[in-house]
């Protein structure tokens, strides 16, 4: 798998390269600032980009803006955004093109290497992965249409937002996979999501979560 990295702190950049290469990813470019991200992505067309939100020169949200404009320039370009803090607001901005292939995780999650690599692969494959922290913040809200969901359905939706598969959700909640599918179709109905392929609906369900 070919990866482009944007991270300004050398220590973290090297760490990311080391971890990715240990798991058979090829880091084709590693940039340390916002303005060189888009040219690198256009040039290398990687399978996935791993991008830090805060980058030079402004040290604000250069990386996030870069990721969003990259997806505008190259539609569907898979991007995994990392940050020291997560904001549902940023998650929503990342997801507005509704194309999938988006991850948004705390940098802390990289420490769990196996899970991190799994997240990279799933984003590269078009999946949507939100940090549990984003999900927790949103679970606290009690506004329509989410108010219509049962507690269990909310749990399932939260785990879907984290990018977990039906099997993983079943294991986590100690229920059968069949029960999970039932919950998910009930969620789709309650959120009035149009029928389409399952992956895409998952993205839409997460968006419904964020749009409120």
């Amino acid at each position, binding site marked *: 798998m070919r990866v482009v990295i944007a991270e300004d702190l050398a220590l973290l950049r090297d760490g990311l390269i080391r971890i990715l290469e240990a798991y058979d990813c090829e880091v084709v470019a590693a940039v340390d600032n916002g303005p060189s991200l888009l040219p690198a992505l256009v040039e290398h067309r990687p399978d996935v980009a791993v991008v830090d939100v805060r980058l030079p020169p402004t040290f604000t949200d250069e990386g996030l803006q870069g990721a969003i404009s990259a997806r505008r*320039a190259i539609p569907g370009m898979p991007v995994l955004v990392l940050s020291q803090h997560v904001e549902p607001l940023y998650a929503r901005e990342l997801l507005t093109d509704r194309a999938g292939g988006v991850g948004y995780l705390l940098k802390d999650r990289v420490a769990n290497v196996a899970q991190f690599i799994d997240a990279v692969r799933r984003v590269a494959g078009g999946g949507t992965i939100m940090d549990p922290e984003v999900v927790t*913040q949103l679970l606290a809200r009690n506004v329509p249409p989410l108010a219509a969901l049962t507690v269990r359905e909310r749990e399932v939706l939260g785990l879907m937002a984290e990018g977990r598969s039906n099997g993983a959700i079943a294991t986590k909640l100690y229920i059968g996979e069949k029960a999970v599918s039932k919950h998910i179709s009930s969620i789709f109905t309650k959120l009035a999501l149009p029928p389409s392929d399952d992956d895409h609906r998952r993205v839409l369900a997460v968006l419904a979560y964020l749009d409120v």
Partner: protein
Amino acid sequence: MDSRDWIREGLRAAVSGATAVPLAVLNIPLFVLFVVSLVLTPVLGLGLVLLPLVTKLIRTRANLARRLAARWGRPIDRPYLPRPQRAPLGGLRHYRWIMRDPATWRDLAWLLPGAVLGPVLGLLAIVLPVYGVEGILLIPLLISLGTDYGYGVIWPISTLADGFLSLPQGVVILAIGVAAAPYPRRADAWITRLFLAPTRAAELRLRVSQLTTTRADTVDAQAAELRRIERDLHDGAQARLVSLGMTIGLAEELVGADPATARKLLAEARETSSAALVELRQLVRGIHPPVLAERGLEGAVRALAMALPIPVTVTAALPGRLDTPVESAAYFVIAEALANATRHSGAGAVSVDLRHTGDMLLAGVTDDGRGGADPAGGTGLRGIERRLAAFDGTMSVSSPPGGPTVVTVELPCALSSPRTSPSFETG
């Protein structure tokens, strides 16, 4: 101004004029009392006690005049020097504080002219309306027939028809009187201000003492904040890093002999590191939220709104970024107001409005909750006021029982730079 406002204003002026007369007359005994206590100072030191008491009365009277003038568009600040510490009534220190304050003598200089001009201007405001009412009630008719009494342009009233003519005249006179009444009141306010407003020097003195207080508060708050951060780091992240180092060291020792335990220790170390990160993140949020640095006030408030359990609508018209300290103060103030709204008000929805007009940031937080919030209670609000005071900002809370609660914050500040998109919008 529509006619109802105009009538209300005129009636208010008439009432204000009527009360001004007896109030102004009070000035005379106050003046006499002051002179007497001044003269009595050498006699057994009676003045040491009397003069401060009389001054207190005079200041109460002058402050009332200042407040009344404010109602006619002439707000007047209080010019008095703050009372020094350890200056009990009857002591020399207290006496000196009063005698050395130029405002004491300016008040005194106002008492007599005020006693003359006050009633004159007060009467001017009420004479015509009262005369008009007299005509409307046909009082001239009742008392005039057979005497040489008259009304308006008819002197004397000799026939019944003449008497009834006082009715339309009265209406006209009342209307003119009500329309004219505010003018003498405004003149009175203007004169009061001339005498009782702080001089430039007094204004500066007040400003200095206010700045001294807010600076001391700010410095205190800052020191307390730093102490809190130090303690949080020391007991939190720092301690966790120490434990992390020890765990990894132990794992290093065991990696050859007991790889299974070493692996367990390393997993533990990873968990410790993420706990340290969680703590640091919370600490950073409390110091300066990253989203505020990245997106400015509007973005940070929007991000905050998304994390609240009830729907929050944010409207904002900020054409640029605010200075960082002001931005941070405004953010924490709004965060506190939003927290109060979601926690205590029972509101179903909250709205935040951010605007910048002139050199002022205006922020309003409105909830549809049950109201009845008391700004005097609650340490959160005091903290807000202290934060705002450092920037000459103010906060007001309107919360009638039944709601809605509106918190309004005003912060003087300039917009530092027009908003620029912080990146390469090429797509």
